Protein backbone atom coordinates (compact mmCIF):
# COMPACT_ATOMS: atom_id res chain seq x y z
CA UNK A 1 0.00 0.00 0.00
CA UNK A 2 1.40 3.37 -0.90
CA UNK A 3 1.33 6.12 1.70
CA UNK A 4 -1.27 7.94 -0.33
CA UNK A 5 -3.50 4.90 -0.14
CA UNK A 6 -2.92 4.64 3.57
CA UNK A 7 -4.00 8.22 3.97
CA UNK A 8 -7.06 8.01 1.79
CA UNK A 9 -8.08 4.77 3.46
CA UNK A 10 -8.15 6.46 6.81
CA UNK A 11 -9.44 9.66 5.27
CA UNK A 12 -12.95 10.95 5.38
CA UNK A 13 -12.23 13.75 2.93
CA UNK A 14 -9.76 13.04 0.17
CA UNK A 15 -10.95 15.69 -2.22
CA UNK A 16 -7.99 17.74 -3.42
CA UNK A 17 -10.12 20.62 -4.66
CA UNK A 18 -11.50 21.29 -1.21
CA UNK A 19 -8.07 22.35 -0.03
CA UNK A 20 -8.29 25.91 1.15
CA UNK A 21 -6.74 28.44 -1.24
CA UNK A 22 -3.53 29.84 0.12
CA UNK A 23 -2.83 33.46 0.88
CA UNK A 24 -0.90 36.03 -1.14
CA UNK A 25 1.65 35.02 -3.73
CA UNK A 26 1.40 31.38 -2.87
CA UNK A 27 -2.11 31.25 -4.31
CA UNK A 28 -0.64 31.40 -7.79
CA UNK A 29 -0.14 27.68 -7.56
CA UNK A 30 -3.50 26.19 -8.33
CA UNK A 31 -5.15 24.82 -5.23
CA UNK A 32 -5.20 21.31 -6.63
CA UNK A 33 -1.39 21.19 -6.61
CA UNK A 34 -1.08 21.71 -2.87
CA UNK A 35 -0.08 18.49 -1.22
CA UNK A 36 -0.23 19.93 2.26
CA UNK A 37 -2.15 23.01 3.26
CA UNK A 38 -0.52 24.17 6.45
CA UNK A 39 -2.59 26.89 8.14
CA UNK A 40 -1.22 27.30 11.63
CA UNK A 41 -2.91 30.15 13.50
CA UNK A 42 -1.34 29.67 16.93
CA UNK A 43 1.06 27.05 18.24
CA UNK A 44 1.58 26.88 22.00
CA UNK A 45 3.89 25.00 24.33
CA UNK A 46 1.93 25.35 27.54
CA UNK A 47 1.30 29.08 27.92
CA UNK A 48 4.21 29.96 25.62
CA UNK A 49 3.14 31.09 22.15
CA UNK A 50 5.87 29.61 19.97
CA UNK A 51 4.50 30.30 16.49
CA UNK A 52 1.63 32.33 15.07
CA UNK A 53 0.23 32.93 11.59
CA UNK A 54 2.24 30.34 9.71
CA UNK A 55 0.34 29.80 6.49
CA UNK A 56 2.68 27.72 4.36
CA UNK A 57 0.95 25.40 1.91
CA UNK A 58 3.36 22.95 0.32
CA UNK A 59 3.17 22.06 -3.35
CA UNK A 60 3.64 18.51 -4.60
CA UNK A 61 6.92 17.48 -6.25
CA UNK A 62 8.58 20.68 -5.16
CA UNK A 63 11.12 21.59 -2.54
CA UNK A 64 9.90 24.10 -0.01
CA UNK A 65 12.48 25.77 2.20
CA UNK A 66 11.87 27.39 5.60
CA UNK A 67 14.45 30.04 6.45
CA UNK A 68 14.84 32.59 9.21
CA UNK A 69 16.85 33.40 12.32
CA UNK A 70 17.19 31.04 15.28
CA UNK A 71 14.04 30.74 17.36
CA UNK A 72 11.74 31.85 14.54
CA UNK A 73 9.80 28.60 14.74
CA UNK A 74 10.74 27.16 11.38
CA UNK A 75 11.66 23.76 12.84
CA UNK A 76 8.55 23.84 14.98
CA UNK A 77 6.40 24.41 11.89
CA UNK A 78 8.20 21.60 10.07
CA UNK A 79 7.63 19.22 12.97
CA UNK A 80 3.95 20.14 12.98
CA UNK A 81 3.66 18.53 9.57
CA UNK A 82 4.17 15.01 10.94
CA UNK A 83 3.03 15.66 14.51
CA UNK A 84 6.48 15.19 16.02
CA UNK A 85 5.62 18.09 18.33
CA UNK A 86 3.09 15.85 20.05
CA UNK A 87 5.94 14.50 22.16
CA UNK A 88 6.63 17.88 23.69
CA UNK A 89 4.52 18.40 26.83
CA UNK A 90 1.97 21.20 26.55
CA UNK A 91 1.98 21.31 22.75
CA UNK A 92 -1.25 22.76 21.33
CA UNK A 93 -2.03 23.80 17.78
CA UNK A 94 -4.82 26.14 16.65
CA UNK A 95 -5.47 25.98 12.95
CA UNK A 96 -5.20 23.07 10.61
CA UNK A 97 -2.69 21.10 8.58
CA UNK A 98 -4.54 19.54 5.69
CA UNK A 99 -2.84 16.68 3.96
CA UNK A 100 -4.60 16.20 0.64
CA UNK A 101 -7.68 17.67 2.25
CA UNK A 102 -7.54 15.70 5.48
CA UNK A 103 -6.72 17.61 8.68
CA UNK A 104 -3.94 15.67 10.39
CA UNK A 105 -4.92 17.35 13.66
CA UNK A 106 -8.49 16.16 13.27
CA UNK A 107 -10.12 14.28 16.14
CA UNK A 108 -9.95 10.78 14.66
CA UNK A 109 -6.43 10.99 13.29
CA UNK A 110 -3.76 8.58 14.50
CA UNK A 111 -0.48 10.51 14.56
CA UNK A 112 1.38 7.25 13.97
CA UNK A 113 -0.44 6.83 10.64
CA UNK A 114 0.53 10.38 9.71
CA UNK A 115 4.21 9.72 10.43
CA UNK A 116 4.09 6.59 8.28
CA UNK A 117 3.23 8.79 5.31
CA UNK A 118 5.54 11.66 6.16
CA UNK A 119 9.20 10.78 6.35
CA UNK A 120 11.65 12.80 8.40
CA UNK A 121 15.39 13.42 8.24
CA UNK A 122 16.87 15.01 11.32
CA UNK A 123 19.62 17.54 11.93
CA UNK A 124 21.98 14.99 13.41
CA UNK A 125 22.28 11.78 11.38
CA UNK A 126 20.52 9.23 13.56
CA UNK A 127 20.93 5.74 12.13
CA UNK A 128 19.97 2.90 14.45
CA UNK A 129 22.65 0.71 15.99
CA UNK A 130 21.81 -1.94 13.41
CA UNK A 131 23.23 -3.02 10.08
CA UNK A 132 22.89 -0.75 7.07
CA UNK A 133 20.38 -3.18 5.57
CA UNK A 134 18.31 -3.32 8.74
CA UNK A 135 18.28 0.45 9.00
CA UNK A 136 16.71 0.77 5.57
CA UNK A 137 14.36 -2.16 6.09
CA UNK A 138 13.17 -0.73 9.42
CA UNK A 139 10.23 1.26 8.06
CA UNK A 140 9.21 -1.58 5.75
CA UNK A 141 9.02 -3.86 8.75
CA UNK A 142 6.98 -1.34 10.71
CA UNK A 143 4.51 -1.32 7.85
CA UNK A 144 4.55 -5.14 7.68
CA UNK A 145 5.71 -4.90 4.08
CA UNK A 146 5.27 -8.25 2.34
CA UNK A 147 7.47 -8.17 -0.68
CA UNK A 148 11.02 -8.21 -1.89
CA UNK A 149 12.99 -6.54 0.88
CA UNK A 150 16.30 -6.82 -0.97
CA UNK A 151 14.88 -4.95 -3.94
CA UNK A 152 13.31 -2.19 -1.86
CA UNK A 153 16.46 -1.73 0.21
CA UNK A 154 18.59 -1.49 -2.91
CA UNK A 155 16.17 0.95 -4.56
CA UNK A 156 16.17 3.15 -1.48
CA UNK A 157 19.96 3.09 -1.17
CA UNK A 158 20.32 3.90 -4.86
CA UNK A 159 17.78 6.68 -4.45
CA UNK A 160 19.88 8.09 -1.64
CA UNK A 161 23.05 7.84 -3.78
CA UNK A 162 24.62 5.51 -1.25
CA UNK A 163 24.34 2.12 -2.93
CA UNK A 164 27.75 2.03 -4.58
CA UNK A 165 29.49 2.88 -1.34
CA UNK A 166 27.76 0.29 0.83
CA UNK A 167 26.66 -2.54 -1.47
CA UNK A 168 29.56 -4.73 -0.29
CA UNK A 169 28.98 -4.14 3.39
CA UNK A 170 25.25 -4.11 3.93
CA UNK A 171 25.69 -6.05 7.17
CA UNK A 172 28.06 -3.46 8.63
CA UNK A 173 26.68 -1.24 11.35
CA UNK A 174 25.02 1.97 10.19
CA UNK A 175 27.12 3.72 12.81
CA UNK A 176 30.33 2.72 11.03
CA UNK A 177 29.63 5.12 8.15
CA UNK A 178 30.91 8.69 7.88
CA UNK A 179 28.62 11.57 8.81
CA UNK A 180 27.57 12.31 5.24
CA UNK A 181 27.01 8.63 4.53
CA UNK A 182 24.99 8.29 7.73
CA UNK A 183 22.76 11.15 6.65
CA UNK A 184 22.23 9.58 3.23
CA UNK A 185 21.45 6.31 5.04
CA UNK A 186 18.80 8.18 7.02
CA UNK A 187 17.40 9.53 3.75
CA UNK A 188 17.37 6.00 2.31
CA UNK A 189 15.59 4.80 5.44
CA UNK A 190 13.01 7.55 5.03
CA UNK A 191 12.33 7.02 1.32
CA UNK A 192 12.25 3.21 1.56
CA UNK A 193 8.60 3.48 2.59
CA UNK A 194 7.87 5.96 -0.24
CA UNK A 195 6.57 8.79 1.92
CA UNK A 196 4.12 11.29 0.46
CA UNK A 197 6.16 14.08 2.04
CA UNK A 198 9.76 14.17 3.22
CA UNK A 199 10.67 16.58 6.00
CA UNK A 200 14.30 17.60 6.43
CA UNK A 201 15.29 19.55 9.53
CA UNK A 202 18.63 21.21 8.72
CA UNK A 203 19.87 17.94 7.20
CA UNK A 204 23.29 19.34 6.28
CA UNK A 205 24.19 21.36 9.33
CA UNK A 206 26.36 18.56 10.73
CA UNK A 207 28.05 17.85 7.39
CA UNK A 208 31.06 19.20 5.51
CA UNK A 209 30.58 21.16 2.25
CA UNK A 210 31.21 18.18 -0.03
CA UNK A 211 28.73 15.95 1.78
CA UNK A 212 26.32 18.89 1.83
CA UNK A 213 26.57 19.24 -1.94
CA UNK A 214 25.84 15.55 -2.41
CA UNK A 215 22.73 15.80 -0.26
CA UNK A 216 21.58 18.85 -2.23
CA UNK A 217 22.06 17.08 -5.56
CA UNK A 218 20.17 14.17 -4.09
CA UNK A 219 17.28 16.41 -3.04
CA UNK A 220 16.95 17.73 -6.58
CA UNK A 221 16.78 14.15 -7.86
CA UNK A 222 14.33 13.11 -5.18
CA UNK A 223 11.83 15.81 -6.00
CA UNK A 224 10.98 13.98 -9.22
CA UNK A 225 9.27 11.42 -7.01
CA UNK A 226 8.84 13.06 -3.65
CA UNK A 227 7.75 16.30 -2.08
CA UNK A 228 10.29 17.85 0.26
CA UNK A 229 10.06 20.47 2.98
CA UNK A 230 13.41 21.57 4.39
CA UNK A 231 14.52 23.82 7.22
CA UNK A 232 17.87 25.43 6.55
CA UNK A 233 20.09 28.10 8.05
CA UNK A 234 22.00 28.27 4.82
CA UNK A 235 20.52 30.86 2.46
CA UNK A 236 22.59 29.66 -0.49
CA UNK A 237 21.24 26.19 0.10
CA UNK A 238 17.68 27.46 -0.07
CA UNK A 239 18.53 29.29 -3.30
CA UNK A 240 20.17 26.23 -4.79
CA UNK A 241 17.48 23.67 -4.07
CA UNK A 242 14.17 25.25 -3.14
CA UNK A 243 11.29 26.02 -5.51
CA UNK A 244 9.51 28.03 -2.85
CA UNK A 245 10.90 29.68 0.23
CA UNK A 246 9.16 30.79 3.42
CA UNK A 247 10.86 33.42 5.56
CA UNK A 248 10.06 33.37 9.27
CA UNK A 249 10.98 35.94 11.87
CA UNK A 250 10.82 36.33 15.65
CA UNK A 251 8.38 38.70 17.29
CA UNK A 252 9.62 39.79 20.72
CA UNK A 253 7.09 42.60 21.18
CA UNK A 254 4.80 40.65 23.53
CA UNK A 255 7.71 39.76 25.83
CA UNK A 256 8.08 36.22 24.53
CA UNK A 257 9.78 34.96 21.40
CA UNK A 258 7.06 34.10 18.93
CA UNK A 259 7.90 33.01 15.44
CA UNK A 260 5.72 34.07 12.53
CA UNK A 261 5.71 34.01 8.76
CA UNK A 262 6.89 37.16 7.01
CA UNK A 263 6.96 36.21 3.36
CA UNK A 264 6.38 33.05 1.36
CA UNK A 265 7.04 33.08 -2.39
CA UNK A 266 8.84 31.40 -5.23
CA UNK A 267 12.51 31.24 -4.23
CA UNK A 268 13.76 33.41 -7.12
CA UNK A 269 11.26 36.16 -6.36
CA UNK A 270 11.95 36.10 -2.64
CA UNK A 271 15.69 36.44 -3.05
CA UNK A 272 15.72 38.85 -6.02
CA UNK A 273 12.83 41.04 -5.07
CA UNK A 274 11.94 40.69 -1.39
CA UNK A 275 8.78 42.61 -0.56
CA UNK A 276 9.13 43.01 3.19
CA UNK A 277 11.77 45.14 4.89
CA UNK A 278 12.64 42.38 7.34
CA UNK A 279 13.23 39.95 4.49
CA UNK A 280 15.49 42.46 2.75
CA UNK A 281 17.48 43.04 5.91
CA UNK A 282 17.82 39.33 6.62
CA UNK A 283 18.95 38.52 3.10
CA UNK A 284 21.50 41.31 3.31
CA UNK A 285 22.83 39.61 6.43
CA UNK A 286 22.01 42.47 8.75
CA UNK A 287 20.81 40.17 11.51
CA UNK A 288 20.71 36.45 12.02
Amino acid at each position, binding site marked *: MTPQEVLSNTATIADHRRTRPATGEASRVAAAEWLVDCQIEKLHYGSFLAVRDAHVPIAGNQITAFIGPSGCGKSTVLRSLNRMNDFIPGFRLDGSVRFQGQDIYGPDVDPVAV*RRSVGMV*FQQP*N*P*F*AMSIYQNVA*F*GLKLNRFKGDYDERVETALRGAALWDEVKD*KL*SASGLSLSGGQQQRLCIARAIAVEPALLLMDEPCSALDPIATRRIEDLMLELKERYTIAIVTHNLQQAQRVADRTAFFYVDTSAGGRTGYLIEYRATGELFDDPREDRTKAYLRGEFS
Partner: protein
Amino acid sequence: MEGLSQGPRAEASFRLRLGDRRTFADRALTLIAIGLGVSALLPLFSVLYMLVVRGSPLLSLELLTELTPGAGMESGGIGNAILGTVVVVMLAAGMSLPLGLFAAIYLAEYGEDSGLSVVVRFAGKVLSGMPSILAGVFAYAIAVSALGSFSAFAGGVALAILIVPTVMLTAEEALRLVPSKMKQAALGMGATRAQMVTKVLIPTAMPGILTGVMLALSRAAGETAPLLLTALFSDYWFDGKLGEPIASLAVLIYNFSGSPFEYQVNLAWAASLVLVALVLLFNVLAQVVTRRPEEH
Protein backbone atom coordinates in the same frame (compact mmCIF):
# COMPACT_ATOMS: atom_id res chain seq x y z
CA MET B 1 67.59 30.46 11.08
CA GLU B 2 68.85 33.77 12.31
CA GLY B 3 65.55 34.45 14.04
CA LEU B 4 65.83 31.16 15.88
CA SER B 5 69.29 31.83 17.24
CA GLN B 6 67.98 34.78 19.20
CA GLY B 7 65.66 32.66 21.33
CA PRO B 8 66.63 29.94 23.82
CA ARG B 9 68.55 27.08 22.30
CA ALA B 10 66.45 24.02 21.58
CA GLU B 11 68.96 21.55 23.04
CA ALA B 12 69.09 23.43 26.28
CA SER B 13 65.36 23.86 26.83
CA PHE B 14 64.16 20.44 25.68
CA ARG B 15 66.55 18.31 27.69
CA LEU B 16 64.91 16.11 30.29
CA ARG B 17 65.94 17.17 33.80
CA LEU B 18 64.89 14.71 36.49
CA GLY B 19 65.87 17.18 39.19
CA ASP B 20 63.18 19.59 38.07
CA ARG B 21 60.36 19.73 40.62
CA ARG B 22 57.55 19.32 38.10
CA THR B 23 59.28 16.44 36.33
CA PHE B 24 59.93 14.74 39.65
CA ALA B 25 56.32 15.17 40.80
CA ASP B 26 55.11 13.83 37.48
CA ARG B 27 57.26 10.72 37.72
CA ALA B 28 56.42 10.16 41.37
CA LEU B 29 52.66 10.45 40.80
CA THR B 30 52.85 8.08 37.85
CA LEU B 31 54.67 5.52 39.99
CA ILE B 32 52.19 5.91 42.85
CA ALA B 33 49.26 5.47 40.47
CA ILE B 34 50.76 2.31 38.98
CA GLY B 35 51.61 0.99 42.44
CA LEU B 36 48.11 1.54 43.79
CA GLY B 37 46.61 0.05 40.65
CA VAL B 38 48.66 -3.10 41.11
CA SER B 39 47.88 -3.35 44.81
CA ALA B 40 44.18 -3.10 44.01
CA LEU B 41 44.61 -6.20 41.88
CA LEU B 42 46.53 -8.05 44.61
CA PRO B 43 43.58 -9.24 46.71
CA LEU B 44 41.72 -10.32 43.59
CA PHE B 45 44.62 -12.32 42.24
CA SER B 46 45.58 -13.81 45.58
CA VAL B 47 42.03 -15.11 46.00
CA LEU B 48 42.09 -16.57 42.49
CA TYR B 49 45.55 -18.03 43.12
CA MET B 50 44.40 -19.70 46.34
CA LEU B 51 41.34 -21.11 44.61
CA VAL B 52 43.36 -22.57 41.77
CA VAL B 53 46.07 -23.99 44.05
CA ARG B 54 43.72 -25.51 46.61
CA GLY B 55 40.81 -26.33 44.32
CA SER B 56 42.42 -27.70 41.20
CA PRO B 57 43.87 -30.99 42.62
CA LEU B 58 40.35 -32.40 42.92
CA LEU B 59 39.22 -31.24 39.48
CA SER B 60 38.02 -34.25 37.52
CA LEU B 61 34.97 -35.56 35.72
CA GLU B 62 33.91 -37.34 38.92
CA LEU B 63 33.96 -34.06 40.79
CA LEU B 64 31.47 -32.56 38.37
CA THR B 65 29.21 -35.60 38.05
CA GLU B 66 29.07 -37.37 41.42
CA LEU B 67 26.97 -36.83 44.51
CA THR B 68 28.31 -35.15 47.62
CA PRO B 69 29.92 -37.63 50.02
CA GLY B 70 28.74 -38.25 53.54
CA ALA B 71 30.94 -37.72 56.60
CA GLY B 72 34.24 -39.57 56.44
CA MET B 73 33.86 -40.79 52.87
CA GLU B 74 36.87 -40.39 50.60
CA SER B 75 35.13 -40.15 47.22
CA GLY B 76 32.32 -38.20 45.65
CA GLY B 77 31.82 -34.91 43.90
CA ILE B 78 29.69 -31.81 43.79
CA GLY B 79 27.49 -32.60 40.78
CA ASN B 80 24.22 -32.18 42.67
CA ALA B 81 25.36 -28.82 44.02
CA ILE B 82 26.30 -27.52 40.56
CA LEU B 83 22.95 -28.59 39.15
CA GLY B 84 21.20 -27.17 42.21
CA THR B 85 22.85 -23.77 41.83
CA VAL B 86 21.88 -23.65 38.16
CA VAL B 87 18.29 -24.65 38.96
CA VAL B 88 17.85 -22.15 41.80
CA VAL B 89 19.43 -19.30 39.83
CA MET B 90 17.28 -20.09 36.79
CA LEU B 91 14.18 -20.17 38.99
CA ALA B 92 15.17 -16.84 40.45
CA ALA B 93 15.86 -15.42 36.98
CA GLY B 94 12.48 -16.61 35.74
CA MET B 95 10.76 -14.83 38.58
CA SER B 96 12.83 -11.68 38.71
CA LEU B 97 13.88 -10.79 35.16
CA PRO B 98 10.41 -10.11 33.68
CA LEU B 99 9.54 -8.07 36.75
CA GLY B 100 12.82 -6.13 36.78
CA LEU B 101 12.95 -5.50 33.04
CA PHE B 102 9.36 -4.36 32.67
CA ALA B 103 9.79 -2.13 35.68
CA ALA B 104 12.91 -0.66 34.05
CA ILE B 105 11.05 0.01 30.80
CA TYR B 106 8.31 1.72 32.78
CA LEU B 107 10.83 3.85 34.67
CA ALA B 108 12.88 4.82 31.64
CA GLU B 109 10.19 5.31 29.04
CA TYR B 110 6.70 5.63 30.46
CA GLY B 111 6.95 6.78 34.06
CA GLU B 112 9.89 9.18 33.78
CA ASP B 113 9.28 11.60 36.63
CA SER B 114 5.85 10.47 37.78
CA GLY B 115 5.24 10.02 41.48
CA LEU B 116 5.04 6.27 41.10
CA SER B 117 8.42 6.01 39.40
CA VAL B 118 10.06 8.16 42.07
CA VAL B 119 8.75 5.77 44.73
CA VAL B 120 9.71 2.67 42.73
CA ARG B 121 13.22 3.97 42.06
CA PHE B 122 13.72 4.83 45.73
CA ALA B 123 12.47 1.41 46.81
CA GLY B 124 14.83 -0.22 44.30
CA LYS B 125 17.82 1.64 45.69
CA VAL B 126 16.94 0.73 49.26
CA LEU B 127 16.37 -2.92 48.32
CA SER B 128 19.63 -3.20 46.40
CA GLY B 129 21.53 -2.22 49.53
CA MET B 130 19.59 -4.57 51.77
CA PRO B 131 21.60 -7.31 53.55
CA SER B 132 20.96 -10.53 51.68
CA ILE B 133 20.01 -12.44 54.80
CA LEU B 134 16.91 -10.28 55.04
CA ALA B 135 15.83 -11.57 51.65
CA GLY B 136 16.29 -15.05 53.10
CA VAL B 137 14.21 -14.23 56.17
CA PHE B 138 11.50 -12.74 54.00
CA ALA B 139 11.45 -15.73 51.65
CA TYR B 140 11.39 -18.00 54.70
CA ALA B 141 8.29 -16.22 55.92
CA ILE B 142 6.38 -16.24 52.64
CA ALA B 143 7.58 -19.51 51.10
CA VAL B 144 9.05 -21.86 53.73
CA SER B 145 6.61 -21.14 56.56
CA ALA B 146 3.63 -21.00 54.27
CA LEU B 147 4.44 -24.20 52.35
CA GLY B 148 5.80 -26.00 55.36
CA SER B 149 9.15 -27.04 53.95
CA PHE B 150 12.55 -25.79 52.85
CA SER B 151 12.48 -25.87 49.07
CA ALA B 152 14.16 -24.97 45.79
CA PHE B 153 11.20 -22.71 45.13
CA ALA B 154 11.81 -20.76 48.34
CA GLY B 155 15.48 -20.43 47.37
CA GLY B 156 14.41 -19.02 44.02
CA VAL B 157 12.15 -16.50 45.72
CA ALA B 158 14.95 -15.36 48.04
CA LEU B 159 17.42 -14.84 45.18
CA ALA B 160 14.75 -13.20 43.01
CA ILE B 161 14.23 -10.57 45.69
CA LEU B 162 17.95 -9.80 45.49
CA ILE B 163 18.01 -9.72 41.68
CA VAL B 164 14.99 -7.50 40.97
CA PRO B 165 16.37 -4.16 42.21
CA THR B 166 19.80 -4.63 40.60
CA VAL B 167 18.33 -5.58 37.24
CA MET B 168 15.73 -2.83 37.39
CA LEU B 169 18.20 -0.06 38.17
CA THR B 170 20.94 -1.13 35.74
CA ALA B 171 18.47 -1.80 32.93
CA GLU B 172 16.85 1.60 33.47
CA GLU B 173 20.28 3.19 33.25
CA ALA B 174 21.04 1.31 30.02
CA LEU B 175 17.69 2.30 28.50
CA ARG B 176 18.21 5.93 29.41
CA LEU B 177 21.59 5.91 27.65
CA VAL B 178 19.94 5.23 24.29
CA PRO B 179 20.25 8.56 22.45
CA SER B 180 16.91 10.30 22.07
CA LYS B 181 17.76 10.93 18.42
CA MET B 182 17.38 7.19 17.79
CA LYS B 183 14.00 7.15 19.52
CA GLN B 184 13.00 10.19 17.44
CA ALA B 185 14.10 8.41 14.30
CA ALA B 186 11.81 5.50 15.07
CA LEU B 187 8.87 7.69 16.00
CA GLY B 188 9.48 9.80 12.89
CA MET B 189 9.22 6.66 10.80
CA GLY B 190 5.74 6.12 12.15
CA ALA B 191 6.59 3.59 14.83
CA THR B 192 4.14 3.34 17.70
CA ARG B 193 5.64 3.81 21.12
CA ALA B 194 5.53 0.06 21.73
CA GLN B 195 7.27 -0.61 18.40
CA MET B 196 9.88 2.00 19.22
CA VAL B 197 10.52 0.32 22.58
CA THR B 198 10.72 -3.22 21.22
CA LYS B 199 12.51 -2.54 17.95
CA VAL B 200 14.91 0.25 18.83
CA LEU B 201 15.10 1.05 22.53
CA ILE B 202 15.59 -2.48 23.88
CA PRO B 203 17.89 -3.80 21.10
CA THR B 204 20.09 -0.72 21.39
CA ALA B 205 20.27 -0.98 25.17
CA MET B 206 20.66 -4.78 25.14
CA PRO B 207 24.42 -4.96 25.91
CA GLY B 208 23.95 -2.73 28.94
CA ILE B 209 20.85 -4.60 30.07
CA LEU B 210 22.61 -7.95 29.79
CA THR B 211 25.59 -6.66 31.75
CA GLY B 212 23.24 -5.75 34.56
CA VAL B 213 21.46 -9.09 34.34
CA MET B 214 24.74 -11.04 34.44
CA LEU B 215 25.97 -8.98 37.35
CA ALA B 216 22.81 -9.65 39.31
CA LEU B 217 22.71 -13.37 38.46
CA SER B 218 26.41 -13.82 39.30
CA ARG B 219 25.92 -12.17 42.63
CA ALA B 220 22.86 -14.30 43.32
CA ALA B 221 24.70 -17.51 42.39
CA GLY B 222 27.23 -16.85 45.15
CA GLU B 223 24.71 -15.91 47.85
CA THR B 224 24.78 -18.26 50.82
CA ALA B 225 22.78 -16.76 53.66
CA PRO B 226 19.43 -16.54 51.86
CA LEU B 227 19.78 -20.13 50.62
CA LEU B 228 20.60 -21.46 54.11
CA LEU B 229 17.23 -20.17 55.24
CA THR B 230 15.28 -21.36 52.21
CA ALA B 231 16.73 -24.04 49.94
CA LEU B 232 18.83 -25.62 52.69
CA PHE B 233 20.85 -28.50 51.22
CA SER B 234 20.37 -31.97 49.84
CA ASP B 235 22.74 -34.88 49.31
CA TYR B 236 20.69 -36.10 46.36
CA TRP B 237 20.13 -35.09 42.77
CA PHE B 238 17.48 -32.55 41.93
CA ASP B 239 14.60 -34.65 40.63
CA GLY B 240 12.24 -31.99 39.34
CA LYS B 241 10.50 -31.44 42.68
CA LEU B 242 10.68 -27.73 43.44
CA GLY B 243 8.99 -28.23 46.80
CA GLU B 244 11.97 -30.03 48.34
CA PRO B 245 15.35 -28.84 49.62
CA ILE B 246 18.05 -28.57 46.98
CA ALA B 247 21.83 -28.52 47.02
CA SER B 248 23.82 -25.46 45.96
CA LEU B 249 27.51 -24.66 45.61
CA ALA B 250 27.34 -21.75 48.03
CA VAL B 251 25.78 -23.78 50.84
CA LEU B 252 28.10 -26.70 50.07
CA ILE B 253 31.09 -24.43 50.53
CA TYR B 254 29.61 -23.13 53.79
CA ASN B 255 28.89 -26.65 55.12
CA PHE B 256 32.07 -28.40 54.04
CA SER B 257 34.61 -25.68 54.77
CA GLY B 258 33.99 -26.15 58.49
CA SER B 259 33.97 -29.93 58.25
CA PRO B 260 36.46 -32.01 60.31
CA PHE B 261 36.96 -34.33 57.33
CA GLU B 262 39.75 -33.34 54.99
CA TYR B 263 38.10 -34.65 51.87
CA GLN B 264 35.05 -32.46 52.46
CA VAL B 265 37.25 -29.42 53.05
CA ASN B 266 39.02 -30.12 49.77
CA LEU B 267 35.66 -30.44 48.05
CA ALA B 268 34.75 -27.00 49.40
CA TRP B 269 37.86 -25.58 47.73
CA ALA B 270 37.05 -27.29 44.47
CA ALA B 271 33.44 -26.07 44.65
CA SER B 272 34.68 -22.50 45.16
CA LEU B 273 36.79 -22.78 42.04
CA VAL B 274 33.89 -24.24 40.06
CA LEU B 275 31.55 -21.48 41.26
CA VAL B 276 33.94 -18.76 40.17
CA ALA B 277 34.49 -20.52 36.84
CA LEU B 278 30.73 -20.80 36.28
CA VAL B 279 30.21 -17.10 36.91
CA LEU B 280 33.11 -16.27 34.60
CA LEU B 281 31.74 -18.55 31.90
CA PHE B 282 28.32 -16.90 32.03
CA ASN B 283 29.86 -13.46 31.80
CA VAL B 284 31.96 -14.39 28.79
CA LEU B 285 28.95 -16.00 27.12
CA ALA B 286 26.88 -12.87 27.64
CA GLN B 287 29.64 -10.75 26.14
CA VAL B 288 29.88 -12.97 23.08
CA VAL B 289 26.13 -13.07 22.57
CA THR B 290 25.71 -9.30 22.71
CA ARG B 291 28.78 -8.30 20.78
CA ARG B 292 27.77 -6.46 17.63
CA PRO B 293 29.93 -7.53 14.73
CA GLU B 294 31.51 -4.96 12.43
CA GLU B 295 30.63 -1.94 14.52
CA HIS B 296 33.66 -0.08 13.26
